[in-house]
């Protein structure tokens, strides 16, 4: 899923100050799962903002709504009436959702309420970890299912650097050394020979390095 984190309330408040009527628009998929922008977060944020504006002696009209996904037109349409009657949209979706709303409602300002952080997993309750950089050329099979591009701080493809100690990364003892994990997993899989193979320089063209990417599925184009 796309993992995100709600922006600090002060930053959000600052961004909506110029407007009278604002739609707080939640997104019911990824950011809901990571407690950043689902309907619960929309409600909590709306209450908090009302309270803080009231303290300042200012009334603000906040409409609350959450749609299934802000990255698909089908769902965005459900919000079109609400979007049209407000001065601005405070979107609690990921950056993709924010931009999709902006694309479809050109004359209404769309403000981000969430910092989009990474593609990750819910490792355990309350803990989300980054697992994929979306490089566009998946080589997980080689590395025992652990991605060195994402999980090694130096993106090393040919083994651990000299800073791996007790299974931890030199950058931060909170980070597990991806290469220690790769080696441990390859051992379990009986694939330690993979470690001896030279991995040539990665082709980054399929990644963001090649510019913004597009996927065209001719078989689905209408």
């Amino acid at each position: 899923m796309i993992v995100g984190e709600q922006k600090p309330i002060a930053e959000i408040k600052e961004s909506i100050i110029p407007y009278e009527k604002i739609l707080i628009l939640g997104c019911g998929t990824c950011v809901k799962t990571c407690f950043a922008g689902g309907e619960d977060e929309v409600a909590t944020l709306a209450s908090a903002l009302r309270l803080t504006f009231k303290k300042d002696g200012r009334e603000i009209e906040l409409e609350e709504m959450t749609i299934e996904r802000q990255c698909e037109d089908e769902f965005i349409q459900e919000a079109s009436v609400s979007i049209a009657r407000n001065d601005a949209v405070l979107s609690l979706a990921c950056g993709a959702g924010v931009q999709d709303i902006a694309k479809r409602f050109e004359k209404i300002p769309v403000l981000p309420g969430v910092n989009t952080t990474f593609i990750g997993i819910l490792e355990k309750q309350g803990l989300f970890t980054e697992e994929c950089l979306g490089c566009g050329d998946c080589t997980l099979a080689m590395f025992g299912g652990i991605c060195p591009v994402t999980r090694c701080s130096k993106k090393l493809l040919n083994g651990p650097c000299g800073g791996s100690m007790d299974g931890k990364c030199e950058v931060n003892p909170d980070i597990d050394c991806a290469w220690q994990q790769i080696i441990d997993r390859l051992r379990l899989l009986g694939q330690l020979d993979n470690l001896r193979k030279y991995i040539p320089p990665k082709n980054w063209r399929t990644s963001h390095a090649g510019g913004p990417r597009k996927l065209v599925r001719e078989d689905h184009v209408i």
Partner: protein
Amino acid sequence: MNKITLSNLQKILSKGEFAVTAECGPPRGADFEVVRRKGELLKGFVDAVNVTDNQTAIVRMSSIAACVHLFNMGIEPVMQMVTRDRNRIALQSDIMGAYSLGIKNILCLSGDHQTFGSQPDAMNVFDIDSMNLVRTVRDMRSDGKDMSGFDLNEPPLMFIGAAANPFADPFEYRVIRLAKKIDAGVDFIQTQCVYNMDRFKEWIHLAREEGLTEKVHILAGVTPLKSAGMARFIANKVAGMDVPESIIKRMAGVSKENAAKEGVKICLETIAELREIKGVHGIHIMAIEWEEKVGEIVESAGLMPRPEPEE
């Protein structure tokens, strides 16, 4: 094409002589005087001098520039180059440029992560890793081509080095990594500082068993300790370094005034032991901001005079 001349370090190592290298960290500024002073302290005592490339991710005078300053003083530089700050385009370009300026040794590294340094907000590059860099320099030398396969009008013929850390984890992988670097084309290895002699011996024993010490020149790293505090700091705070408790105790067991002397003594004992180990072809002295000690260490270790560079 220019006349092909080997680097001094390459000549010494290929003749089977015990090599001595040292290190020079460029200044945080544009003052060449700092490099000159360090160069003066090292000249004549070592066969080549490594010039670090923004070590610990702190912005300094570029490695290439400092290498040229040393070169102009008649000191042979080993240009360190990290993949942290440059993509493959810049790396290849700088290698050609460096060679054109007279630099003939390169040490290929990934580099300390930028979050350790003075500008932790920086974006890193890591387009390729140090293994890829070794192979790139080797392919330039042996095939005369850049990474795209383009024929270079004059290929850089670098003597290629890389680092090895026998003290990092996972231990069993460290020899595999050495073998991979050799396959990629490395000529010489400079190791992380040796304090834990047992572990170093175990590593080189495994390397010898795989026949690796016949295929590459290994220079063991040493760093003289200045104080017990420094020993503790290295042991606890520097990633990938291993200082056994016995060394820390020894440093703590002497008075403050005698600590530096004790540090040099430990260093000399380490060098003496390293010289007896089959498969060790030299030492790399990393006297951090203590370049004035290098001459004394080399002399006391009985490693003077250094072989004259041949014309």
